[in-house]
Every structure is written in structure tokens, then in C-alpha cells.
């Protein structure tokens, strides 16, 4: 789609070494978009593939005027590819999907229908996944439970790339590092209305998965950060206070253990000095995290992020 032509719908597809899938993917996308019947563009973000994906993409672009190809200077990862796609998107609605054919472009009309009903984000939910059970599905289930527990988003499957966003939201969302996994949580932090929709999931045909089990600990750490960013970014002191509270609880338990009359509790007798020691240490941590919280408040204030207009930061509806 050449610049200047109004576009209603932008499809963003991050591509990293998916050359054998691309033609099929594009054909499926074209069929799905025909059913949608809106002026649209397809943005392929080539994350510096090394298998000739770019050449295939340029061929597709020559055949289809709706195609735009964003070519990275080097490999920057999936989150960066999505962020670049968001930045380039011109449509009122942005739909993201994987380049590996595991998402079904046939689900796009259903996602759009949900957006039209007034949602800001519609997240795909791979109800029937076709991935390895032990290496992919169980860790993913655990991660999703943890994410929804921590952030309060009721989304079963935040890892599914097939999602639809209103452009309003996309403009207000800043994603970096590997935050694409937490998009629904982050979107809620920006005041978005989030829904989910069961979508089709197909087994991989060509190429191989770029993820493995090694990311588990990283996801846990990211989760700790996302929780803070999505829910406490305007009052980090409360987040650190919450952590302090946790340590305070521990401190009280150990204080109790060290002062209780050990004639009545035989077990405690052996441990009172131990408990006292731990109590002091926990007290230290309580103090320490409150101080870190103050430091964070300073960082937030100094950044001036809250001086920006609220309506530029948060998704809202005017009535």
C-alpha cells in the first residue's frame, strides 16, 4: 500500500528465518483479508533473517501492493520486530501474527469483530496447542497462570502472537526487551479493555521453533519486572512496600520463635538464637526495600513521565 492511501487494517508479521513458510502464509493471509473486505496493509518485519526470507518478501511485495517490508539492521528479537511493526502501522486496527503458520489467518475476521464490539485488545487463546507437552505446553501453562495471578489479567494464553489491537492503544504502549509475552498485562496497565478469543493452532510444518525451556528463569525475572511496570509504575514505593511487607511477615514469625517460652515448645528451644538472627536480617531487608522504593519514586519523578498528558498516555473513551 503506497503512502497516502487510507488504510483501515494493518497486519504485522515478525519474520525470522521463515522462508519456506512465507508464500503459503501470504496466500492464506490474502484469502482471509478478502473475507474482511477492508483496505489493509501487510507489514512483514524481517528481523535480519539469514535464510533468504527478505528476497521472498520482496517478491511478495512486487506481486501485492498491500505488502510493506521492514528490514532491520541486525537481529533485534521478536519484541523489537513487533514494536517496529506497531510504529509503522497506519491502520485503525493492528493485527499481529506469527510467521510460522501456526496461527491461522482465518481467525482474523473473528478478532476484528471483537474489536468492533469495543475492545482495545483481543488476545488469541490457543485452546488446542500442537506443541511438545513437556517442553512447551506445561511451562507455558505455568507461566500463564503466574502472569494472570500476578497481574490480574484474566487471559489464558498471553504467549500467543495472534492478537488484535486498536491503534489508539498501540500508540500508547511502549514495549522493549522481551515484553511481547506480557502484552495483555501491559495493555491493561494502559487502561485497555482486554478480551480473549479461542483461536486455531496448527502444528509447525517447516522450520523449527526458536524457543526452548531455557527461558523459564528469564520469564520469571521478567514477570517480577512486568508486575511492577504494569501495576505500580506510578507508585513504585507501594510495590517495594509490598515486598517489605512480605519480609515483615517473616520477621514477625521469627521474632515470635525467638521470644516464645521454650519450656512449652520443645522444638523452639534449639532454634531461638537462630531465629533472632534471621529476624534481624529480615528487618534489614524491610528497611532496605523501603529505601529502594523511595529511590524508585525519585526515578519516576525525575523522568517527568507523569508530566505528559494523561490522555496521551492512557487509553480512554470520551462520551
Amino acid at each position: 500500500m503506497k503512502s497516502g492511501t487510507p488504510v483501515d487494517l494493518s497486519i504485522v508479521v515478525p519474520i525470522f528465518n521463515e522462508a519456506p513458510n512465507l508464500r503459503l502464509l501470504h496466500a492464506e493471509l490474502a484469502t482471509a483479508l478478502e473475507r474482511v473486505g477492508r483496505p489493509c496493509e501487510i507489514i512483514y518485519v524481517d528481523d535480519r533473517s539469514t535464510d533468504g526470507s527478505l528476497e521472498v518478501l520482496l517478491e511478495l511485495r512486487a506481486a501485492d501492493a498491500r505488502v510493506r517490508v521492514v528490514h532491520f539492521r541486525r537481529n533485534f528479537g521478536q519484541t523489537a520486530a513487533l514494536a517496529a511493526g506497531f510504529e509503522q502501522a497506519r491502520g485503525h486496527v493492528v493485527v499481529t501474527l506469527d510467521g510460522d503458520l501456526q496461527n491461522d489467518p482465518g481467525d482474523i475476521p473473528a478478532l476484528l469483530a471483537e474489536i468492533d464490539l469495543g475492545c482495545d485488545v483481543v488476545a488469541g487463546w490457543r485452546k488446542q496447542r500442537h506443541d511438545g507437552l513437556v517442553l512447551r505446553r506445561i511451562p507455558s501453562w505455568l507461566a500463564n497462570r503466574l502472569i494472570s495471578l500476578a497481574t490480574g489479567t484474566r487471559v489464558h494464553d498471553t504467549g500467543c502472537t495472534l492478537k488484535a489491537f486498536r491503534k489508539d492503544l498501540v500508540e500508547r504502549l511502549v514495549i522493549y526487551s522481551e515484553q511481547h509475552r506480557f502484552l495483555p498485562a501491559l495493555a491493561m496497565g494502559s487502561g485497555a479493555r482486554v478480551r480473549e478469543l479461542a483461536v486455531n493452532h496448527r502444528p509447525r510444518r517447516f522450520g523449527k521453533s526458536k524457543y526452548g525451556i531455557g527461558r523459564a528463569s528469564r520469564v520469571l525475572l521478567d514477570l517480577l519486572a512486568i508486575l511492577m511496570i504494569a501495576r505500580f509504575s506510578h507508585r513504585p514505593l507501594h510495590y517495594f512496600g509490598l515486598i517489605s511487607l512480605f519480609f515483615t511477615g517473616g520477621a514477625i514469625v521469627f521474632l515470635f520463635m525467638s521470644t516464645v517460652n521454650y519450656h512449652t515448645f520443645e522444638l523452639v528451644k534449639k532454634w531461638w538464637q537462630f531465629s533472632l538472627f534471621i529476624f534481624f536480617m529480615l528487618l534489614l531487608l524491610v528497611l532496605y526495600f523501603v529505601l529502594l522504593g523511595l529511590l524508585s519514586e525519585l526515578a519516576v519523578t525525575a523522568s517527568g513521565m507523569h508530566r505528559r498528558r494523561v490522555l496521551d498516555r492512557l487509553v480512554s473513551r470520551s462520551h
Partner: protein
Amino acid sequence: MSETNPQDLPPAREELAPKPLAAARAALDPLAVSASGARLAPPHLATLDVTVLVPITSPRAEVRDVVVALGRELEREGRSHEFVLVFDGVRGKAWSDALELAAQHGDKLRMISFENPFGESVCLSAGFEISRGRVILTSPQYVQIDPLELAPVLAAIDAGADFVTPWRHPRVDARLNRVQSACFNWLIRQIIRMQFHDLNCYFRAIRREVLAEVAVYGDMYRFLPVIAHRQGFRVVEVPVRHLKEWGQSGFFGLGVYVRRFLDVLGVMFLTKFTLKPLRFFGSVGALCSFLGLAILAVVSYQRLTGDNEGLYGRPVFLLAVMLLVVGVQIIGFGLVGEIIIYTQARHLREYRIERVYE
């Protein structure tokens, strides 16, 4: 940029001073305004092919040799060029030489001088801010590299490189220096996983766009190729002929090694973890905590089963508790890092687009 103050000049040179100074000021004038207020010379000011940028940190700098040698080569290559000499808190012979050269070259040779030394990074940024070349060629303050190497270096830029970093090969300085330098570069390669052999040579050709995007401060000038590569620029290494080496030979002071190590640590952290500080602090912290917990479990088990002395009297128990506390604290640091990055994320774009095919 400080004013060039005639009173500070050696008396013997005073009669030389006024005219070239006026010329230099006149050349600087339109830019001097923008250099004090606005940051960069706008792109349309890039009217020349090459700006040779020479940071000068010693009064014994061989300014004349450098200017003459590189000037001749650039002339031969047929590239329009200019020289920018940045005096980092030094004057002396180098300054008076520069004044004479400025008188000969007029607009083609300009100087910036600082009253105090601010380091090479500041020199580089300052020189860049008034430069007019499409390519910035930084040169050491003496003829360290064979001027004939200018041709292949610039050819690499013409072939599409954004940044050409030299590799002195073979080297002519003392063996001990070479060993130390090799160790340093090996360490960098291991940490950053990039194939650069020689980060300590500053005969670099840098496309203007790179310096416009990469902020150089502190000791960053040393790692500029690494940072440019991280930003997605094409960095090419070109072997060059090493003529002589000025620096001190033998072992450096302990402080130098400590500082170098800290630099490496800083670059490693900034290149890998700028946008995910919790990944770094969290891993270190979790490791500490885990170690502490493991030791704690062992000593508690011993206490539970055996009838040994109280835990508080065992040093290993103290160690375990300390590790646990430190580990948790380190994770806390990571959280503060995350909030800092989050508040700035709008300004820190992670990706660089080479081209959008519309």
C-alpha cells in the same frame, strides 16, 4: 568549547596569534553559536568528504606531521577534507604548531581547546559537533599508522561500511604491550562475542550517521566499534600497517588495570542488559540467594540431627545468611533498574531499521 585566550599563549608566539585566531574564530562563528546552544551541526552542513579529527592530549603531539601526512594522502585520493584539532587541556608546542598550520590552511583547519582535560570521548563529541565531513576520520596525535593505509580504510567506507576499525598487524611496539593488548582484546571478544582484534587503536573512519546516533561519553570511545555494532551499524575491521607506538611500555599502574576491567564490565552490562537490568541483577542475586539457602539447609539439617553447638556460633551459618540477604538486595537493585528504564523507554529505541520497502 572554550575561548582561545591570547594571554595564555607563550610570549614567543604572540605575534603569530591574532591573525590565525581571528581566522579560526571567523570559521567557527556560525557553528560556535550552534555548538553552545544546539547540539549537532545539521546534516546539510556535511559539505565535505572527510573530517580528520585529532584529539590532542600532549603538548608534544606531532600535529604538523599528522596534518601534513594525512592531508597529502587525502589530496591524492581527491577527497575534500578539513582538520579539526581538539586540544584537551594542553597547549605548548602542539598549540603553536597548530596556530601556524591554521594560518596556512585557513578554513580547512580548525581548533577547539578546553581549559581542563576532559578525556577523549569529550574531544570526539566536541570535534564531531563542529565537523562538516560525511566521514569522520579520527587519528592519533602522532603518525601511528602508515598514512598510505588511508586508501583502504576509506575504500571500506565506500564499499558500504559504516565504521572502519583498524587492526594494527603486525605490531611494532614492545612485546609485553602486545601481550597485554591481546589479552584485553581476547577478553572483550569473549564477553561481547564479537570478532574485533584491536580496540585500542583510534585510526578510525566513522560515517557521520553513526556519531549522530551513538552517544559517546566516559570511556566509551574505546568501545565505539562494539557500541556501533550493537546499534546495527556495519563495522568492518581493516588490517593496517603499524609505524610506531607512543604509549608507555611495560606494566601499567594497578589503577589502569582496575579501570580497564571496570570498563569491560560496564560495556558488557550496557550492551547486553540496558533494557533488561533485572535479567542481570536478578541472575546474580538469585545465584547468591540460592547458595545461601543451600548452605542454610545443610547447617539446619546438621543442627536438627546432631547435637552440635548453636548455629549462631558457626561462621558458615553467618555466611549463608549474608548471602541470602545480599542476594535479595541485588534483586532489589534490578527492580530499581527496571523502573528507571521503564520511565525512559520512550527515548530508548531498541531496534534500528535499515530500510522500509513501501
